[in-house]
């Protein structure tokens, strides 16, 4: 399948907030009530269309447990979007958002689009975090916000697609510097890769894309201290 852009996502948040279920709902359109703990990181992918363009989403679903934190940090760099998930029925998962956000901001590039997600919106009766609180948090930290339910699939599609839209807009605005000749630089962010040829499908106009964040080019030219 040919595609015009390739976006890498990561899903982060406390353990048990439904990160894997969100991914499963998005990629397979099904819900698994009993899910094993994610070990390390799991991968999923899907094609979406924005502005008439095919966009491939590669999604890395990370383990929420503290013990995996050092592993999952490796995935921040190079991700164009992050879904930061909490559980609306568990106040503590909301309280931990600041830590997660600090972690993400520290290890990722500043242009990474972060979508805050309050999951399990179907469990209204057990709600502990008001929607307004989520909205306020997102406003305060410059995130996009949505409440979803991986169980009923409510807003799941929108969450992934809206994030992609935001990234796409950033590319259109030129926030991401698209450059062919950056492969050799050691700090190359290649979350947008060139689309692949495929024998059966007509190929989209070939963007030989590799993307570098502007400040990272600047980064690379500085001597390391």
């Amino acid at each position, binding site marked *: *399948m040919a595609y015009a852009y390739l976006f*890498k996502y990561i899903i982060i948040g406390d353990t048990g907030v439904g990160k894997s279920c969100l991914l499963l709902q998005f990629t397979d359109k099904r819900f698994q009530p009993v899910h094993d703990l994610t*070990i*390390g*990181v*799991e*991968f*999923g*992918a899907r094609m979406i269309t924005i502005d008439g363009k095919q966009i*491939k989403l*590669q999604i*890395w679903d990370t383990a929420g447990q503290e013990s995996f934190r*050092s*592993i999952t*940090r*490796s*995935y921040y*760099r*190079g991700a164009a979007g992050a879904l930061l998930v909490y559980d609306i029925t568990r106040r503590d998962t909301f309280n931990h958002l600041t830590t997660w956000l600090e972690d993400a901001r520290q*290890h990722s590039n500043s242009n990474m689009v972060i979508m805050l997600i309050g999951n399990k919106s179907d469990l209204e009766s057990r709600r502990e975090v008001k929607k307004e609180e989520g909205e306020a948090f997102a406003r305060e930290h410059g995130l996009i916000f949505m409440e979803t339910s991986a169980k009923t699939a409510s807003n799941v599609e929108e969450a992934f697609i809206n994030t992609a839209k935001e990234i796409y807009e950033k590319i259109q605005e030129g926030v991401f510097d698209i450059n062919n000749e950056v*492969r*050799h*630089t*050691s*700090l*190359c962010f*290649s979350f947008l*890769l060139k689309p*692949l*040829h*495929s*024998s*059966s499908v007509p190929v989209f106009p070939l963007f030989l894309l590799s993307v570098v964040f502007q400040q990272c080019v600047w980064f690379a030219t500085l001597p*390391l201290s």
Partner: protein
Amino acid sequence: MNFFRGVMGGQAAGPQPSGAETIQKLCDRVASSTLLEDRRDAVRALKSLSKKYRMEVGTQAMEHLINILQTDRSDSEILGYALDTLYNLICNDEEEEQDESEDAVTPIPASGKHKNVSMPDEAMQKQSDDLGAQFTEQFIQDPEHITLILSLLEEFDFHVRWPGVKLLTALLKNQGVQVQGIILVSPMGVSRLMDLLADSREVIRNDGLLLLQQLTKSNAAIQKIVAFESAFERLLDIITEEGSSDGGIVVEDCLLLLLNLLKNNSSNQNFFKEGSYIQRMKPWFEVGDDNSGWSAQKVTNLHLMLQLVRVMVSPVNSPGASASCQKSMYQCGLLQQLCTILMATGVPADILTETINTVSEVIRGSQVNQDYFASVNAPSNPPRPAIVVLLMSMVNERQPFVLRCAVLYCFQCFLYKNQKGQGEIVATLLPSTIDANSISAGQLLCGGLFSADSLSNWCASVALAHALQDNLTQKEQLLRVQLATSLGKPPVSLLQQCTNILSQGDKIARRGSKVQTRVGLLMLLCTWINNCPIAVTHFLHNQENVPFLTAQISENLGEDERLVQGLCALLLGICIFYNDNSLENYTKDKLKQLIEKRIGKENFVEKLGFITKHELYSRAAQKPQPVFLSPEQMLFDHEFTKLVKELEGVITKAVHKSSEDEKKEEDVKKTLEQHDNIVMQYKDLIREQDTQIQELKEQVATMTSQSEQMQTTVTQQLSQIQQHKDQYNIIKLKLGKDSQSQANSQADSQVNGLQTEELSQLREDLEKLRQQHTLLQAQLSDKDALINTLRSETAEGSAASDNTEMLKELDALRSQVHSQATEIDQMKTERQELLRKAEAASSEAVSSSDGSLDAAKMAEVESRLAAQTSETERLKEESKSLSKSRVDLDQQLAAATSTAAILQTEKAQLQTEVQESKKEQDDLLMLLADQDQKIHSLKQKLKALGEPVDDEDDLDARDQTDDDEEDDDEDED
């Protein structure tokens, strides 16, 4: 430098200082010298000694070297020496040390070690291995040291980065798990190492590949991070740049790394598939017809490429993942490309073998791919199906053993979960479809079955068994196959021929082991008659079979034959278990009795157990691919091991059970069936109830929604009622005010404000009217008086009649005014009525609003409200009619005033008439006076003339003259 020379010189002649002493001195210098150059020289000296005095340098200098790495980061030269020294200490690979100065060549890591090592060398190697492990352990005791190396890799300088890469590789080789752990948790550790692949200097990129190979070895977490850092993309790019399979060892290293990343890592496999990288593998296999170059490197590369394909579709992967990979391999043409290699000429045997294995796994269990494979033709004349060509190799004893195994695997995979394919294969044996002119798969299998080569026998048996696997139709179809053994003899069924070979196996001189043939045939028979009572009956129908089996089982044979005995027991067991009791001599009971008498139950079960106890059994059970170390070990088939597992228990049970037990069991079965029936009934009932519940739930849902709607309407109505109540309260208040004012002013009361206004207006109007009325009355009385005076004046006047008329009219006016007054009275009374009614209504409202809390009462209130509102309405209407009548009255009043006006004008006319009549009277008086004078004069004249004159007339005249005199006076005035 002097010191260094001294060391070297000392070595050449004179009393030799021991290595340890020299190293100690150098270490002191490294530690204490303040001059960078001094330290640099000392480290360089340590480096040169590090191979010869590895032990000494390692134990004494390690600490100092690490210190250098931490403190002298600004000088890349000293860093380089220190890293080189550490590398020499830690690396165990002699050859690599020698090669270290050469840039481009990267030695093969795995093969390098064991080349030409003689016995003493081996001991030395072992010693150096120990040293390497020891130093590695020492080095990684502090995880910070690994982090240090990682940070040094950021240094772009070749003299730092390259030895850094090599050192880390060596560390990983020696203590993989620990070092992996440290790198994994150090921030961006793995990502930094991935950046090595982007280095423009090939040496570093290539050594980076080796480093990543070590790094990713059996560590899924690291494998995933490396994949996340676009490893697939870069590695595939490098492979393409280097010329794919024609490329050198770099391609091989890339492929090894790819294998590391994908093997047993479903997440990465998914990523690889989703990243459309499968499509990029297709060009690798476009080796085409140029048979010229099959270099050793190309064979190695292609081998690894094929393995990479197999990793993606391995039978041990989850079925869903494999299936989607198989699908995309077909869609992108990879399978077709592999089949081209399969049919190409001049392909080295091991590549061909691996290609067959790869094709096998690409088509296994995938209907589309299996169908495609069945349609592939070999480019021979006439074209033959690829399956036939492959089977020809399988039953050809001159072909390499591994190739024959691969073909068998391919055939098995073709038939796996492929009922259509199974049917097609069996059909080539059936009388109706046999084509004598061409070689068919069935013919080749039969040929293999009865050939003199035991390996062919075994392969053909297993292949045929796979054509029957889980397929009752084909098991029954195959019973129809008849064979013409030799001229003049009646044809024999295939089943019979198989048992014949079993029992008379000794008659034909065979190559290979007899056991292999018999095991193969027994596996075929077991698979065939398993779960197929008709086949069991066919088998038992031959009188020789059961005695043969019992003889085989009961005999006390050698070790070799134990497996055959076990298989015979299994076959007999299946005959019991799947017996439909249609043959009188061989019913279940009779066979069991036979076992008891001739073999003994315990003995039978023990023999049966020989199968699973065989050493090769568990090996075959592990994976579907038939892999055997030697042709003799080719005894078990993977699918057959599953069958044994399934049957062993049930057969043991079946044999142990006595006929009574069986009867009991049958009873139990019957009751169970009854139970089942009951359960089924209950289940149906439950299902029914379920649907009912569902319906009811839906009903409840609709009801609740309805009730919600009702609730909302009720609340709406409640608010309406509240509004009404408020209105009532307002009205009540107003009414109270009105009644107060009524008490004071006797005025009318109304139901609402408008009416009060109207009433007050009416009252005012009435007041006005009354005033007008009194005014009019006053005027009238004035006029009456005037008229009376006039009348008295004109009592004798001619216009008296006119005055009376006027009087009449005035009377009429008066009566009209009277009637108006009475009407006003009526209105007053009506208003009082209204007031009363309103009071009654308000009192009603008060009483009802008091007890209005629950819905029912509310309804009551509502109804009352409605009544009241209607009453109010009615009152309004009444007041309206009242106002109408008031208007009427107004009009009447207006009419009255107008008539009054008319009357006034008439009166004025009358007055003028009176005036006129007065004048006339004056005139008349004047005339009278004149006439009187005339008459008097005439009388005088008559008297004078002597005529008599009446006295009366005189009297009258006198009277007249009095009046006249008066008049005259007036006139004179």
